[in-house]
């Protein structure tokens, strides 16, 4: 039995795809939203630290699973290794309805104006493909606002003097500081910095028909037991479904785009929940599968019209793979600073996001999410015992007396950090898997060293009895903040999609996820991905309503 033709197929029900589904189905378009995973609930994994989305030693709580998924990673010496989905090198994002928005820490950052104009602000950076976005912050501002109000953000932008201008405040008041944040707040102020409560995609008050957050320590990496965390799974996706125009097909693996004999993309091939091969035709296709899976799908879709994959005429698909090097410092105190007010991260500064001497970009600094018991076993000053009596003593003494000030550094896009498809390794469904290769730009380490030194300064000023830096910025980037692999741009020779997310060389294929990011900001990217979902979704919906069928 063949599937009924629809107006739009959306691949991936995460931060981008969920938003697009709502925008298109509310505009009256018939939509099939594909998701490789399923709906997930808190009860499936509870607060199991070893099987979460943050610590994954026993598996990814919300997928992808180790049985069916593989990736290949190219080592520094050129050799390759096959990695399991739960291993760090896999660079997973959750495979479930809502994807990472179910289990994220939920920081809700807007990028700054400079983040869209990195080349204009800092000039050419040798060895980097650093570039301006084809859209500005001001173009995207109303989309950020929509994301904040429809999905739900708690914060107080007035306290951050570096925040880009906004028209409307956040819909919910900010979260209060926990004890460690209060200690850090006075330290930051003494140093002349400008601390403020982190904007969060969590309910600080009852909002949108869901309860207010109860501040559990197990939040980042876990589903919320009371549904107080705002993701696409409990906001825009239900809204899309309630229009009656959107069908969500879970446990479906989209394997390639269907290209007809005229070179038009007419739909997608996929494996349904029983692993049967099926096709779904549509007028338009919106790929929102993440900065790793989106290029994979495009590269796996070849024909005489697209001999190296859809959108890949100039070999830019999968290039400029970025993420965030996390960098900062730890501090130990001689009194309890842990008050079990979750999720831990509550305070931030944006003083070092831009215009730092000798540094391209920068990043926010925030206190880290609660370091759970197993996670904490690996946090020790350099040279400390990693086992035995004194390791246990440290665990007892400092579990409630440590903090980490840390942030994501804006990475320099690097052309040779890339997502390809592997020539031989296939997944459970026989689809060629992702092959990851490359490394970060050397400038990233400089940014990390800079930001870590500032973090340590804050901890010392706060009265920490011992501090040490943790400096990131080496090796292959990616991780859960993965981005950049289908760059947005005006020139088809140096980008993959146009400023509305449409893949060059196609009339009806769009991308709406972090693959679009020209640069990834010095901020957690979730809210920007959502905003881009509105940007692309609104464009498609308004054109559709004007009669444009994207032929």
């Amino acid at each position: 039995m063949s599937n009924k033709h629809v107006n739009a197929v959306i691949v991936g029900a995460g931060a981008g795809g969920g938003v697009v589904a709502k925008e298109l189905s509310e505009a009256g378009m018939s939509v099939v939203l594909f998701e490789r995973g399923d709906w997930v609930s808190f009860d499936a994994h509870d607060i199991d630290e070893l099987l979460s989305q943050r610590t994954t030693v026993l598996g990814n709580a919300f997928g992808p699973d180790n049985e069916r998924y593989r990736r290949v990673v190219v080592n520094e010496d050129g050799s390759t290794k096959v990695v399991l989905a739960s291993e760090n090198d896999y660079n997973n994002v959750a495979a479930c309805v809502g994807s990472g928005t179910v289990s994220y820490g939920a920081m809700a950052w807007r990028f700054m104006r400079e983040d869209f104009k990195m080349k204009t602000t800092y000039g050419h950076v040798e060895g980097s493909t650093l570039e301006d976005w084809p859209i500005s912050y001001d173009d995207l501002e109303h989309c950020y606002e929509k994301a904040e109000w429809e999905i739900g953000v708690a914060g107080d932008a007035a306290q951050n003097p570096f925040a880009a201008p906004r028209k409307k405040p956040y819909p919910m008041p900010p979260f209060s500081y926990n004890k460690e944040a209060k200690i850090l707040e006075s330290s930051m102020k003494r140093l002349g910095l400008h601390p403020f409560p982190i904007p969060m995609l969590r309910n600080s008050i009852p909002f949108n028909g869901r309860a207010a957050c109860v501040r559990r320590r197990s939040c980042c990496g876990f589903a919320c037991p009371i549904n107080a965390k705002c993701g696409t799974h409990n906001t825009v996706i239900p809204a899309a479904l309630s229009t009656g125009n959107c069908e969500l097909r879970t446990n479906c693996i989209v394997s390639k785009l269907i290209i007809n004999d005229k070179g038009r993309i007419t739909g997608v091939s996929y494996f349904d929940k029983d692993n049967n091969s099926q096709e779904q035709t549509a007028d338009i296709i919106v790929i929102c599968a993440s900065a790793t899976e989106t290029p994979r799908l495009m590269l796996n879709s070849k024909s005489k019209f697209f001999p190296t994959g859809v959108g890949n005429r100039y070999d830019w698909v999968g290039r400029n793979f970025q993420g965030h090097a996390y960098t900062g410092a730890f501090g130990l105190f001689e009194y309890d600073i842990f008050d079990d007010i979750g999720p831990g991260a509550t305070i931030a500064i944006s003083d070092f996001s831009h215009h730092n001497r000798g540094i391209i970009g920068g990043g926010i600094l925030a206190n880290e999410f609660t370091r759970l018991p197993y996670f904490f076993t690996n946090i020790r000053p350099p040279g400390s015992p990693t086992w035995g009596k004194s390791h246990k003593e440290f665990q007892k003494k400092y579990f409630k007396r440590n903090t980490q000030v840390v942030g994501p550094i804006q990475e320099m896009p690097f052309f040779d950090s890339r997502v390809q498809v592997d020539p031989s390794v296939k997944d459970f469904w026989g689809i060629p898997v992702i092959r990851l290769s490359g490394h970060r730009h050397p400038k990233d380490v400089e940014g990390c060293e800079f930001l870590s030194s500032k973090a340590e300064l804050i901890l010392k000023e706060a009265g920490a009895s011992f501090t040490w830096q943790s400096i990131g910025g080496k090796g292959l980037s990616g991780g859960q903040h993965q981005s950049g692999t289908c760059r947005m741009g005006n020139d088809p020779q140096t980008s993959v999609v146009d400023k509305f997310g449409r893949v060059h060389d196609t009339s009806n294929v769009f991308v709406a996820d972090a693959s679009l990011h020209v640069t990834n900001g010095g901020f957690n990217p979730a809210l920007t991905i959502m905003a881009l979902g509105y940007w692309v979704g609104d464009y498609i919906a308004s054109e559709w309503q004007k009669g444009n069928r994207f032929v």
Partner: protein
Amino acid sequence: MDDGNRLSRRDFVKIATLSAGALSLTVGSLSFIEGCTTTPKTGTLFFSENEIKLMEAIAEQIIPTDEWPGGRNAGVVNFLDEQLVGPYRRFQQDYRKGLEALEKTCENKFHSKFEKLSWDSQTAVLQDMEASRLNGEAWKNGFSKYYFELLRSHCMQGFYGSPRHGGNKDYISYKMIGIDQPPIVGENRYGI
């Protein structure tokens, strides 16, 4: 999600805490709270009896008993035994190879089993293993350091991870560091 159940579960937690104090919650009731039951096992799933003794000694070295239980009594080996036929099936060969090599090393060097060595000698053997200082074919090519790190991190997981996986018996490590379990909003209830 069934909100009714959620509420009743939370209420149960509250009542149990108020009436008995979280410290005296029984293992049975905690299992109920976590939504999974642990049935006592007969026999082991992966380790032989000899390997159990050896593993317990190793776990005890990694997390020694002090005023709180150590790796042996916190069920670390039970955790590993379960994981090695589950998510850690891929490490079975490493364990077989590593434990056999450790036995052989102790036999050659001390004419004794690892677990019969003095505490300090056991520590020294593990330190040598960590630093790739042990003699023997099996330890070559980085296996010594690799396997020690595997043992170390797995023991930590068994001691500090959720009891649902067979370790951290009676939530002992959470009690030790003074965090309540199940988590109750606000200050912890142990007063430690």
